[in-house]
């Protein structure tokens, strides 16, 4: 199931890039949230970030997105050798949409990807473009639904489609599986697997669902203020650090 990883010395990847985080530290209000965080993300890789609530997962994402001041360095390297900032697609954590909000999927999408003011009638061309984007996540039928009326899985798919337009070099998903039922979860993970192969992009996601790690991820990073363990899912799930962070006597498969 898992795809072949790119070796560090191997040939560059097609357009996608490598993310290198070194000695990253983040402070907020005088207290340290993250310190000495270092890891690599290669293209075509799915990397899972795990850790208890408040471990700094969302802060790490926001830092990579450039929304938080930090110490240490975040380096990007594109296949063409340039270190220009890559495009990062971001799927935020369980965004709460007001159930009564009269914003349709089309409205939301069109507002994010075009300049056309969406309170005016939406041109056919723009509608077709949005439908095309939704097709990537098999969500064409959602186009006229209201954002607030979507199920957890449907909402994640719409947000994923949005993060893929324009096509990013790195895709970041903050707890994409929370609020999604079992079927939706598998559908979403299969989709991510398909996307990283088709577009050769790196995926970094945070999750509390350890049962799916082995099947879907190449690398797992255990984070609690700092990187406690990093390696293949098997390695991390059986590590001493994992057991002590989650207070488990038996390591595997537990939530």
């Amino acid at each position: 199931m898992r795809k072949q990883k790119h070796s560090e010395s191997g040939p560059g990847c097609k357009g996608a890039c490598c993310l290198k985080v070194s000695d990253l530290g983040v402070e907020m209000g005088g207290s340290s949230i993250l310190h000495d965080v270092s890891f690599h993300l290669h293209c075509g890789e799915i990397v899972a970030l795990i850790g208890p609530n408040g471990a700094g997962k969302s802060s790490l994402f926001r830092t990579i997105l450039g929304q938080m001041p930090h110490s240490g360095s975040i380096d990007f390297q594109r296949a063409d050798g340039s270190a220009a900032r890559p495009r990062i697609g971001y799927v935020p954590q369980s965004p709460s949409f007001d159930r009564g909000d009269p914003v349709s999927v089309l409205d939301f999408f069109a507002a994010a990807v075009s300049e056309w003011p969406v309170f005016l009638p939406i041109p056919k061309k723009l509608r077709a473009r949005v439908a095309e984007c939704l097709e990537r996540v098999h969500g064409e039928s959602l186009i006229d639904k209201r954002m607030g009326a979507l199920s957890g899985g449907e909402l994640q798919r719409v947000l994923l489609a949005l993060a893929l337009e324009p096509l990013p070099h790195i895709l970041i998903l903050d707890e994409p599986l929370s609020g999604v039922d079992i079927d939706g979860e598998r559908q979403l993970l299969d989709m991510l697997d398909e996307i990283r192969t088709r577009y050769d992009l790196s995926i970094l996601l945070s999750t509390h669902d350890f049962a799916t790690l082995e099947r879907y991820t190449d690398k797992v990073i255990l984070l609690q203020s700092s990187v406690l363990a990093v390696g293949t899912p098997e390695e991390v799930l059986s590590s001493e650090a994992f057991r002590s962070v989650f207070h488990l006597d038996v390591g595997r498969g537990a939530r």
Partner: protein
Amino acid sequence: MELWYQLVGLLPFEWAQPDSMYFMKNALLAVLVITPLFGLLSTMVVQSRMSFFSDALGHSAFTGIAIGTLCGLADPMWGAILFAAVFALLFTYVRRHTNLASDTVIGVFSSTAVALGIFVATLGGGSFTKFNALLIGDILSVEPGKIGLLAVLLAVVVVLWVCAYNHLMLSAVHPALADSRGIRVFWQEALFSMAIAVVVTVSMTWIGLMVINSLLVLPAAAGRNLAKNLRQYHLFSILGALAAGIAGLLTSYYWEASTGACITLYLALYFAITFCFRGKRQ
């Protein structure tokens, strides 16, 4: 204005007869400009959950008038507009840079501004009664020049909507997502709250501070009961505000009651009716 007076002359009302009741004709034109303006802003006020903010703005807008009077401005409204804009900017800044809940920050700003207003107004033994007129408002006192100013405001807000609506909406719905797509959320919020501040300040003389917030909340609240997308939302909000405005003005004329209150009551009725039909949009 001559063209307008001629047009109104075609209406079958006694006050619409040529060469009479200019105050009523002015008021009608003002209502036709103000209500779509508030209907439009209303959609975003409700969407970004700023109804409490606009309420606070209304209650503190007289502070600006008081300060303007103190500084000896010929028209204290300009002082009030400046004050409201600064108030909105400061509020947005503090809200973005604190962990406090938004309603707490509003409470802090609102009470400070109201206290400052009362302090300035009563300074040196002054009487507060001169501000009483602002509380109820009187649209019949509107002058053609002020209608022109309102029309300019409407044009500015429409331009703002065409240029910045998408970014405003995304910032309101999901700030972090908007930020990740390169939208400068702080400035979007600041721009919008300043727009509300200026519109509330300019209109309060005619609508009345006590009810002005209803115009910023009710049209969109009713629109949300029915709308399935943003086009319908804007349509229901603007048309509702416009209809309630005209009906409110006419009712206040024939029953001799406050116009602001009449408009608000019609809007409340509009909300009640849409509420009864809300289930049908799924």
